């Protein structure tokens, strides 16, 4: 029947777009990203095969068993077959999630690197702000009452705190390539989300929680950061960038920022 070739055609077209990677991930810029893409591929191949076979089988039965006068076979089921494909599915599904566990553990459950460069992120409606501890290596005191976006103080840095005076505030994220980063994330109003496609990482930023995100970016470049949790009418404009630069350039940048204070 007509539905069979339609199902087959749809299947082939869909598979093509995946195989040809017509719209795809941007290249990864970290080891995590590479591992991510491998797990994605594993999952894609397995689900792709199942997709192809299932749709093909559906089309096949539609075609082969259309009413052509003969009588239908009569069976209620087949326990052996049932057990076989249930077990196979269970093994496959659970297997694939176990294989991805390493990646999850690496991001969220591994020992934090004590040498990670600490950077604070403050998310608000509708912008990301980043803070660096400055030459003294300490993050200064902040107070919500001192927040003044218009005057360039989204963190509410307390002038009276010497540790705060040298903190560097930036509208975009600048990181040195090849070095572990600890992004300490806060929100001061609603839930936001930090996402960098090339890192293959995202994390909700929840008010009332301090959430650290550890990563390491290896490839220099500028990468867009779209907010990825609905935060209000400006959600679609909440954008920043992550600039990955050589360590030397990063140090130069920090010195420049300190000098401009």
């Amino acid at each position, binding site marked *: 029947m007509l539905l069979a070739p339609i199902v087959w055609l749809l299947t082939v077209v869909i598979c093509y777009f995946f195989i040809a990677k017509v719209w795809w991930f941007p290249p990864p810029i970290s080891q995590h990203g590479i591992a991510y893409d491998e797990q994605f591929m594993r999952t894609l191949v397995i689900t792709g095969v199942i997709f192809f076979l299932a749709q093909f089988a559906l089309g096949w039965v539609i075609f082969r068993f259309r009413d052509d006068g003969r009588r239908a076979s009569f069976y209620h089921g087949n326990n052996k077959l049932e057990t076989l494909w249930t077990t196979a599915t269970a093994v496959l599904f659970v297997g694939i999630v176990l294989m991805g566990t390493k990646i999850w553990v690496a991001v969220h459950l591994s020992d934090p690197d004590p040498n990670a460069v600490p950077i604070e992120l403050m998310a608000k409606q509708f912008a990301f702000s980043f803070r660096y501890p400055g030459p003294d290596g300490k993050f200064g005191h902040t107070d919500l009452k001192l927040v003044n976006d218009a005057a360039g103080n989204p963190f509410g840095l307390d002038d009276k705190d010497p540790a705060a005076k040298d903190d560097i505030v930036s509208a975009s994220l600048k990181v040195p390539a090849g070095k572990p980063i600890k992004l300490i994330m806060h929100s001061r109003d609603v839930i936001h989300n930090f996402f960098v496609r090339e890192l293959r990482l995202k*994390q909700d930023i929840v008010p009332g929680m301090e959430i650290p995100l550890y990563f390491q970016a290896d490839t220099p470049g500028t990468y867009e950061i779209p907010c990825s949790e609905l935060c209000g009418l400006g959600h679609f404009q909440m954008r920043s960038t992550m600039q990955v630069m050589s360590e030397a350039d990063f140090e130069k940048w920090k010195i420049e920022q300190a000098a401009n204070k």
Partner: protein
Amino acid sequence: MHAHHAPQGFIRKYIFSLDHKVIGIQYYFLALFSVLIGMSLSLLMRFHMVNPDVKVHWFATLWPTAAQGGIMTPELYLSLMTMHGTIMVFFVLTTAPQSGFGNYFLPIQIGAEDMAFPVLNMLSFWTTLVALGVMVSAFFVQGGAPLAGWTAYPPLSAVGRLSGPGEGLGQTLWIVSIAIFCGASLMGAINFIATLIDLRCQGMSLWRLPLTCWTWFVTAILGLLGFAVLLAAGVLLILDRTAGTSFFLPAGLLVSDTILNHKGGSPLLWQHLFWFFGHPEVYIAILPGMGVTSQLLSTFSRKPVFGYKAMVYAILGIGFLGFLVWGHHMFMSGMSPYSAMAFSVLTMAIGVPSAIKTFNWIGTLWGGKIHFTTAMMFALGFVSLFVTGGLSGIFLGQPALDLYFHDTYFVVGHFHMIMGVAAIFGMFAGTFYWFPKMFGRMMNETLGKIHFYCTFLGVYAIFTPMHWLGIAGNPRRYSDFTNFDFMGKLLPVHTFMTHAAYFTAAVQILFFINLFWSMKYGKKAPMNPWNSTTLEWTIPSPPPFDNFAGHHPVVNHGAYEYSVPGAPRDFIMQTDPVDVIAEPRH
């Protein structure tokens, strides 16, 4: 239950009816009305996404503030999006498959005269209607409808007007509507469960129940347990919004230049409560469609359901596991990474009964004698769509992969395939299958097939590209994509999907024409046009007010005895005498 007299008078017969059949039709039309609203909202959304700067004159007429100058503001977009999701999930997917078809056919399929509590049944419909009224009223109040999504995460949904227009009265009305809906849902659950457990006719043992009844039963249990939790969550949210409590609101909030004096609450608490309801909710949306699909695949291949018992266990398994996986909506939320791993394994586990059902559907078709009625086409379409939509869940169920895919169009594609299409196809299938029984007339097969093919291709065209957008990293809930370089390159995909949406929406006119025209002018339907085996096909089309006209059916056979060797015809009605053929062992 006392036998009741035929209702007299227009009001008693059609408005405040106690008859489960009328109530089922009322629910069906409520869902039909709601889906028109929901679909219109989605078309507006898709238009805006690819034409964010185009002036549309009548936008300004409809929304003088929110679409000044004829351009949709982002807040208007988000409120249309919020209402689209809410109306579709609650007033379409939770009503038609369960309260629509279930109300009509559960009592008949088990051989009962009506639901256990007809007055409660009537109340449940009118309460649902009131809930819909309150929901729609949110469009018309100051500030308009809420913009926090159908998931209403605090703090965005909890701090009132400070976080956006529509977050004032609009959000409150939304919560009130949902709370009323929870009450209506509970009333329905009481009826479905009591009816199925206690009103089955003689011989209708559990293992002889049609799979549709099993799905309505498990769906009712899911609704019973899930909606109660949603109600509790809604109460807490209203208190945070209006009474100054801090269930979900932490300290340190600065919204619209205002420092809020809440403290100690947790936004994650809302997410846990919401998704504890929210996940069973999506199984509520899909299970009845699975039941209908099983029923139709069997009927129209003239074969028993392959592995009936396994199908029942799969339904029970999906229902049970459905309560254990809610955390997979929260992998990126900041909750414990260990919880994420636990939820992930359980999520993969729930893929197993779903896979069993798919294999068994194909097994049902294998070796069959397939009649391609429109009802059957939609059932076949359901299987294809369920496979496509279900498989993308394998990606999302892994927190490792969700690190990229959360809140992208990959998720939007996944849930639309399953809910926005497969479940809808289940409703279409049910409509074409049961229309003759409900209205005593046949629907037009030609119009039905054209509608089917166009819709089938249309929905694939709309929702498959969303997966590729997700791979490219396109976030969801964005009102326009012009602020990001990488999204600009994806606009042609959005344009394609938008045009596919226009086409698919337009094609639905064929369905409406078919539905309403056939009610009056369709060919008269016989008692059993499909030679189907279940009890509804033993009574006239349409049925008398008390279904079995005072007769008490006695069931001697299982629900899917097709093509039994040695039987005089290729189907044995459930009420056929015992000795039509020796009953095969399961």
